[in-house]
């Protein structure tokens, strides 16, 4: 089978979103743990330092996904971003607050000041994966896309019981992923508390994911369209969550983290598999669906972009992995923590 470039770019964008939610997923989770697990300002500082050197690089996966959509599927980018205007505005406000909070919080030695920014990090880390859950679910369930590829949506076109279930599932999943990351990067009491919380949250994640899959059966056509591929993926997701639980019980944190990472990767993958070859589903008429063909750039542009991407991606992966390697050590409160 020869892959057409349109398909290559669809896969690449899917990979970028997998990478984004895998990586930023745990730093969102760590952000949520700022209120649920950390008890003292010192512990919150430790949590932030576990992701300090890498969160910015993680976020670039999202920015690159946006850029890749713009370049490879301009109509997808235009339809989605103008159609989901309000959720995106809120998401951007949250990302802006979160990004500067990491830098600003330690610049003043004042508990109120630090608390304000810590709350910013917490709220943003909680609502961001939530909004991504809404967006992904809405992509699958369909939005009122007209013949001009424009969405005229009201709030209740994308806030539905189904998208809320998706949002809760993604948020909990990121939280669990973050908790396991904390067990890998901290020691002592904080590490134990994260592990204990994870042991409880893992059940909620399991329930939410199953609910999401069941709801997808009723609210979307992904089972009709891609059932043969999706059912094994869903089975793998269930297996991964069960494994995450048993590794957590045995305190094999690295494996538990690997399992939640796998769960995230499989969940995001199933969204894209369910869509393919569509990129957005129209709830008005399937003739108005956006596909990897009618939403795409021309073949020349895709070819150029492919060459560029294939050349650059090994370097990007290389130095990102190196950066994780440099900061592989656990973070302790006794170290110098400010920067």
């Amino acid at each position, binding site marked *: 089978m020869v892959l057409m470039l349109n398909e290559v770019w669809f896969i690449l964008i899917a990979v970028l979103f997998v990478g984004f939610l895998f990586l930023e997923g745990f730093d969102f989770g760590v952000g949520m743990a700022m209120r649920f697990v950390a008890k003292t300002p010192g512990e919150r500082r430790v949590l932030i330092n576990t992701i300090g050197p890498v969160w*910015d690089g993680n976020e670039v996966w999202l920015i690159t996904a*946006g*850029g890749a959509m713009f*370049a490879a599927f*301009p109509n997808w*980018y235009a339809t989605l971003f103008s159609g989901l205007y309000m959720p995106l*505005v809120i998401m951007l406000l949250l990302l802006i607050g979160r990004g500067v909070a990491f*830098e600003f919080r330690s610049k003043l030695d004042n508990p109120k000041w630090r608390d304000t920014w810590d709350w910013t990090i917490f709220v943003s880390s909680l609502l961001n994966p939530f909004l991504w859950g809404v967006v992904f679910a809405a992509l699958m369930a369909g939005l009122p896309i007209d013949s001009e590829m424009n969405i005229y949506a009201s709030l209740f076109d994308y806030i539905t019981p189904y998208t809320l279930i998706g949002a809760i599932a993604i948020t909990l999943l990121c939280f669990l992923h973050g908790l396991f990351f904390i067990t890998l990067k901290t020691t002592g009491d904080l590490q134990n508390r994260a592990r204990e919380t994870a042991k409880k949250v893992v059940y909620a994640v399991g329930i939410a994911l199953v609910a999401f899959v069941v709801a997808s059966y009723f609210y979307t056509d992904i089972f009709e369209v891609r059932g043969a591929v999706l059912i094994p993926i869903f089975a793998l997701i269930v297996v991964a969550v069960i494994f995450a639980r048993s590794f957590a019980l045995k305190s094999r944190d690295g494996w538990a983290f690997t399992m939640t990472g796998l769960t995230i990767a499989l969940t995001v993958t199933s969204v894209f598999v369910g869509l393919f070859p569509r990129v957005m589903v129209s709830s008005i008429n399937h003739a108005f669906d956006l596909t990897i063909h009618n939403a795409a*750039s021309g073949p020349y542009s895709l070819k150029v972009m492919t060459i560029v991407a294939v050349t650059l991606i090994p370097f990007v992966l290389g130095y990102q992995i190196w950066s994780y390697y440099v900061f592989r050590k656990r973070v302790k409160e006794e170290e110098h923590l400010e920067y």
Partner: protein
Amino acid sequence: MDVITLSRIQFASTTIFHFIFVPLSIGLVFLIALMETLYVVKGKEQYKKMAKFWGHLFLINFAVGVVTGILQEFQFGMNWSNYSRFVGDVFGAPLAVEALLAFFMESTFIGLWIFGWKRLSKKVHLMCIWLVSIGTIISAFWILVANSFMQYPVGFEINNGRAEMNDFLALITSGQVWVEFPHTVFGSLATGAFLITGVSAWKLLKKQDTAFFKKSFNIALIVAIISGFGIAFTGHAQSQFLVETQPMKMAAAEGLWEDSGDPAAWTLFANIDSDNQENSFEVNIPYILSYLSYSEFSGSVEGMKSIQAKYEELYGEGDYIPPVKTTFWSFRIMVFTGGLMILLGLYGAYLSKRKKLEQSSKYLKIMIWAISLPFIGSTAGWIMTEIGRQPWVVFGHMQTQDAVSPNVTAGQVLFSLISFSAIYLILAIVMAYLFVRVIKKGPVEEEKDVKLTTDPFGEEGYGSYAK
């Protein structure tokens, strides 16, 4: 107000705000990399202290630059979806390359630089800051490739009612890119340099850490002078390119309604009357416009009225004259700030050479105010570039009014405009406050070393050790 007006205001305000931080980041990180290089080569602790002190300011600034940049990328799809559909094929590509080639590099290596002082060897640590610096410059290059396409579209053909790329090489070797890119980079280096000279001047006036700030001042001054001349030469090249490719912008920037005489005089001041298409008062300097346009002291320059007539033939009926006053005055402000920067730089070098810097309190006071010059200059420059292109968003192919999202309501844009402006205002205040605090505190002594702990990705994390 309607969607188009609100979207214009939003784009202008968020872009101008974003572009306060970007050039400062590019300039500061380059200077920090220079200082750390001196540290690695000469081994003097003072240079390390310098890199760290200016690094604090850089990091506060960098954070704001990054977060406001995300909005820049998403805004095209949110507010200008018709534009995105029309040009995504061409315009999206440089943005994607920018993310892949520059953003990953900047964000990863800045993390390594901040947290890596004790974990990396001196040379590897130095490499990290240089890679951040190179990353910021690469980022500027690709975003200017995208912008140049709007000014002077090349490397594409119109297919099925949209622009499709057919020559990537033409896109990145476009004459517009190669006048715009060096001009912007020199402007950015000057921005960083003037911040450092200004802050150092303030500290020298207060007689705090004199040796430290004198050294900083001198390093930054060299960069300021070189980039000052760089700005002037590349600016000249750019205006010549402009006369050829966007004569209307140039004519508006000159307030030139009728074709000029030969040789053409440069208008220093004018009272522009856009309604009657004339200037009621002008102060002219003979020959200079010819020189600016053609590098020689002869040649006439076309005025707006005759270009308007040409464009009507070419593109159909319509008003092709941009807001003349804005274009005219922003151009003058840009040129004026640029010239002032060169003079201040040279005078500083003279004082420094004669070892009179610390005694010249008047000059030092001026240098504190001069921090604002590059910001004013580059803001004015961008206003001239973007307003001067109107009514076009992609010159000759798409007008701004056709670029807006048809499905987004005025209420939605108003909501986002208010909320982004509010959060940007807060950011500006917080930043200014933090800057002043860091500067007041001054350079700090090294902290003590604490040994780092264990490796979770070894046996501990994946093995059966843990209980």
